[in-house]
């Protein structure tokens, strides 16, 4: 929209972001060479990673950016709860039906909102 968003500054910012992201992956590879999967540090780092991924997921659901923020928080949490219930309703896990449940409910809410 503004001219600043099209110029060389954007490309430089993109380069920084790409290099920073790849650097994290590369550091991971470097460190992984020294870690044994039976070790205590491996167990600890697994827990740290799952906590990070969980925090990221909850952030996307509870404090989303953009369109999802227009859906009431209670409804977002409710849809997640129902999808989780579908998922664990079978010991073999029902990933497809659970994803479908959540997505369709979100879709229904969206179409309900746009046609008052």
């Amino acid at each position: 929209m503004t001219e600043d968003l099209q110029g060389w500054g954007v490309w430089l910012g993109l380069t920084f972001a790409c290099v920073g992201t790849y650097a994290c992956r590369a550091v991971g590879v470097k460190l992984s060479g020294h870690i044994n999967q039976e070790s205590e540090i491996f167990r600890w780092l697994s827990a740290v990673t799952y906590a990070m991924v969980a925090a990221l997921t909850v952030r996307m659901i509870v404090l989303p950016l953009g369109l999802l923020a227009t859906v009431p928080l209670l409804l977002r949490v409710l849809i997640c709860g129902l999808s989780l219930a579908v998922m664990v309703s079978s010991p073999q896990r029902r990933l497809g039906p659970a994803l479908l449940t959540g997505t369709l409910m979100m879709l229904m809410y969206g179409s309900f909102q746009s046609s008052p």
Partner: protein
Amino acid sequence: MTLNRFANRRHAFWSGIRDALGAPVLVLFAGMVGFGAMGRTQGFDVWMTGLTSLLMFALPGQVVMLEMFISGASLLAIGFAVTLTSTRFITMVVTLFPQFHRRDRNPWLYVWVHLLAMTAWAVSMREFPSIAPKHRLNYFIGLALPCWIIAPLGTVLGFFVAGWVPPAVTLGLVFINPLFFLLTFTDVKPWANRMAIGLGCVLGPVFFIWDADSSLLTTGLVAGTLAYVVDRTWLRPRPLVVKP
């Protein structure tokens, strides 16, 4: 224990591809379509939006980058914030790559690591225990390659359809991503990791409100360490100590 799930490496690779062409590719595609549409509405060009997905390939970081460009942050601040969001890759790689066979742990991993995203990580962590170590790398490449290829395609598509797709559909697409990760958590077996997920869900928003940029790292360290210590101190079965 013999794990003969795959006949050979080629078989493992194609099984990875087959597993990718379902929920993982769908989830990546949906997220990237959402990102492409977001880039369009914020006034970026199609090249920049598409290349971000190809070269950065980390959706949360990409979203942070767009947001910061719009708010007019400095380039250095953008690079720093995105890198902080991507620190999860360090531990994701460290927890996944040591599970490969010795022979596969060579400099080629610096190439394959670019294909890693949360989707492929979550699926690999679930599947690796039932795959022989020598087949794991090929399975991983088969799984992660389609996810990476679909990312820029979804982004460019999202860029061009932005505006004429009904908001309800976009809403569904945007929601698939967090929902998928939430659902995969139910497959996590070790108690330390289960507790880490629970604590991460609770502490994540708290740390986010405190300081958004560093919140993933702090949540990971605090919740993860707490879960690890509780598991080690009280839950894990102790090795039998035979007193002389």
